[in-house]
């Protein structure tokens, strides 16, 4: 039986952090938001990480489902260990500064939140593909005491990771020059447009050997739609 895995360095965990976070990145499992009050918690607003599985967080039109599962992100007294502190997902260097090694999410401190309460302007980090499957591995282990290899989790979540990356490309290209006041409406319209366009690839996306041809086709289409 495999062991729970760990990243080779904190950098491996994150796709974006701090000022790097791309506004157009679709909300995804492993995104960390600030100023989130989790219902049922009496600790006020704080950091929260999205825990809903990547494959089940969106519904018709590519819109987020009404409620998402989130976990409270805190600084612990000492760094949580990848091997041993199984009720936690360590998030080292989530933010810079003193105690940055001690960021973590307790997989017991979770709650459901209305998706509309997550403000993309308050997103402070997005996990990398590797970070997402490490989180999934710890979540699965926490609830079942059973370990599934991250390579297998990656293959299972691959279609959602692929779609999120291409949606990010799509939204970024379409929203780059949109005025702030129009951004939310344009974001929703382009999310729906992408969802409708990408529907033709969802079945093929289940097969890893098709991912590169799907990327190629979507990016070619995107270039043709955004040519000026």
């Amino acid at each position, binding site marked *: 039986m495999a062991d729970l895995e760990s990243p080779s360095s904190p950098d491996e965990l994150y796709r974006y952090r701090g000022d790097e976070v791309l506004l157009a990145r679709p909300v995804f499992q492993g995104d960390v938001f600030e100023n989130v009050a989790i219902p049922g918690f009496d600790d006020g607003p704080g950091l929260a990480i999205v825990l809903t599985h990547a494959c089940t967080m969106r519904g018709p039109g590519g819109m987020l489902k009404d409620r998402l599962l989130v976990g409270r992100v805190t600084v612990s007294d000492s760094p949580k260990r990848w091997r041993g502190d199984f009720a936690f997902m360590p998030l080292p260097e989530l933010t810079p500064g003193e105690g940055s090694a001690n960021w973590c999410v307790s997989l017991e401190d979770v709650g459901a939140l209305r998706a509309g309460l997550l403000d993309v302007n308050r997103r402070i980090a997005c996990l990398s593909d590797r970070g997402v499957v490490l989180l999934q591995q710890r979540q699965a282990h926490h609830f079942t005491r059973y370990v599934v*290899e991250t390579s297998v989790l990656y293959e*299972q979540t691959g279609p959602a990771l692929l779609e999120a990356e291409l949606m990010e490309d799509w939204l970024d290209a379409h929203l780059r020059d949109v005025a702030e006041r129009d951004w939310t409406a344009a974001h929703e319209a382009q999310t729906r447009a992408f969802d409708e366009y990408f529907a033709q690839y969802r079945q093929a996306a289940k097969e890893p050997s098709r991912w*590169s041809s799907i990327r190629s086709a979507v990016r070619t289409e995107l270039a043709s739609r955004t040519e000026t």
Partner: protein
Amino acid sequence: MSRAPFELDINPGTTSSGVRETSPVSQTLASITREFGRLRDKTSFLDENVGVDHRRAQLQTLELVARERLREGAQRLLEDLSVRRGLGWTDIARVVGVSVQAIRKWRAGQPATGENQLSLARLAALLDLLADVPVASPAAWLEVPVLTGYAPRHMDVYYGGRPDLLFDLAHLRITPEVALQELDPDWRDKWKLDHEVFTAADDNLSIRRRQ
């Protein structure tokens, strides 16, 4: 009538004392076996030398093609890798050793260091050379596992610094098992997968113990 090479004398005799002499057949077989042994040693020595030189030549070719592709600059290389080849940003960033955010900046026209540009050019060159093998879709090939039931993908072999193994695999000169053995002698224990992905009754991907 002349004998064909390695034709055997099948009439062994005995001495006057009745003690059986070493059979001419045995002597001939022993001689042939020794000769085969010598030939085998020679060819395996030759094969090893040629193999080493061939791998070196492949790496030099990769480097030469990479130097040519380097002239295109980071922005065009990224467009080629992502649009024409269809690689994911995560894999490109990992191979170059930078963040996805750094890749985004280069796509937007910000300068990349010479070393990073060379890493991009090397990846583009690898795909060019694999396409010449021919591997129908080099990017797709890089994304699939070297051997079913084991974790490493072909991309991981490249990331592990062994493009030479990829060329040998693409040309079917070595088996996946040999490639994984060269990557890590403990590969069977280290990378064996106990689980597999399958399409469940709701038509979504799910996970089960490997059948």
